[in-house]
């Protein structure tokens, strides 16, 4: 990549920082320059972000219809998957999976709920109600 070919596209990085790129100058020597962003990367982030949003919306729908417990909603909201929730809570993966069922979630002890609430950074109340403004 030549120095004047470094992309300068708008990106989510805009308000945050510019990134360093290595590129060659006219003489063929390597030098560094700052880049604002690259559309290709911004799109990759964008589509991943959209997918996460869609999964969250889907989870909210499921919780509303009584097909899943609020744990699923907050898991998706925090972009976690089973292994990550399990690692943070200290529960086994299969335990977390069980807790995704509304019937089982209903009877969870305060202690376990507290654990989930801590991991998702919300109160137990918010967890139980799957209150969407928690984020």
């Amino acid at each position, binding site marked *: 990549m030549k120095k004047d070919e470094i992309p300068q596209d708008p990106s*989510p990085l805009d308000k945050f920082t510019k990134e360093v790129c290595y590129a060659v100058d006219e003489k063929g020597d*390597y030098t560094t320059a*700052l880049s604002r962003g690259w559309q290709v990367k911004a*799109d990759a982030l*964008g589509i*991943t972000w959209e997918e996460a949003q869609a999964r969250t919306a889907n989870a909210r729908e499921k919780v509303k219809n009584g097909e899943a417990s609020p744990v699923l909603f907050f898991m998706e909201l925090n*972009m976690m998957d089973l292994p*990550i929730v399990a690692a943070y809570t200290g529960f086994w993966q299969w335990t977390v999976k069980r807790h995704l069922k509304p019937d089982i979630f209903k009877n969870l002890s305060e202690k376990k709920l507290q654990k989930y609430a801590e991991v998702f950074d919300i109160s137990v109340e918010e967890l139980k109600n799957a209150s969407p403004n928690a984020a």
Partner: protein
Amino acid sequence: MQLNFQHIQAAHCENGVTTNLLRHMGIHQITEPLAFGIGAGIFYIHIPFLKISGGPAISFRTMPGQIFTRTCRSLGVKIERKTFSSKEKAQQFLDDCLAKGQPAGCQVGVYHLSYFPKEFRFHFNAHNLVVYGKENETYLVSDPVMETVTTISAHDLERVRFAKGALAPNGQIYFPKTSEPVSEERIKKGIIKGIKHASWFMTETPVPILGVAGIRFTAGRIKTWRESLGARRGGLYLAQLVRMGEEIGTGGAGFRFVYAAFLQQAHAFVGKDELLEVSKQFTAIGDLWRASSVQASGIYKGRMTEQQDFNVMGDMLLNIADKEKAAFKALYKIKW
């Protein structure tokens, strides 16, 4: 309390941490490309059967801490590295370091890094930064991918240092301890060792998911994604490949350009003309990686959804694998 620490922005977090920490202790010859090359940071693995955030498990980078360790070892610098099971002890240790005037490298998870924009906050645990001071309950942070230094609250720092999931940092902290003055000769040896290691790893490891063979493996997989996952999920997988390759940590094109820069700087030290030649090859390979990302973006943007498009993407990676094999072989064969 604030240490006199010079923040230099870098393309890749661990390179930056390594460079900045070594410069802080007086090794001024070190630059980001040199740290990357001596630490043999170039890497590729595609682990089948394993998924990361619902996509393929591809990594362009070694285990966190490797570049730092290897660079220091090559330069004869003694290091301190610690992980913790207790959060209190981890913070105490960090505070003690700062009190002694020692800035410390920390491995952290990205998700709770409060100064990152939300789009970047994934559960990714191999980010590195330097803590160089503390004021009240706020830590002063030099994050090498940022233009300037920043701050993070003690609470947030604890959270990111004890992020969970794959490659959990467990509060990992590291810094160079002592060093003799680093001679020109030492750097030369380090460079040669780094080149040997990287070229060996990329071409000679007899495991079909590592190095150049790993890139081939990915290429083959990509061609099956449309069939097995559908165009949309296949596109998401490609987006993951591009994120792993080009996003802040860099990997694909970014790493090739840094490596090409390293070979140029290495030439100034060891003076083998082959290095300049191979450096040009890596520049060209970096451009190929970028072209492949553009092709991938066409697919995940939904502009191109045919099997043909996935095939083209796969073939681009195969082409890259061939070129890289040739370039690394040329390095591997240099008689020092």
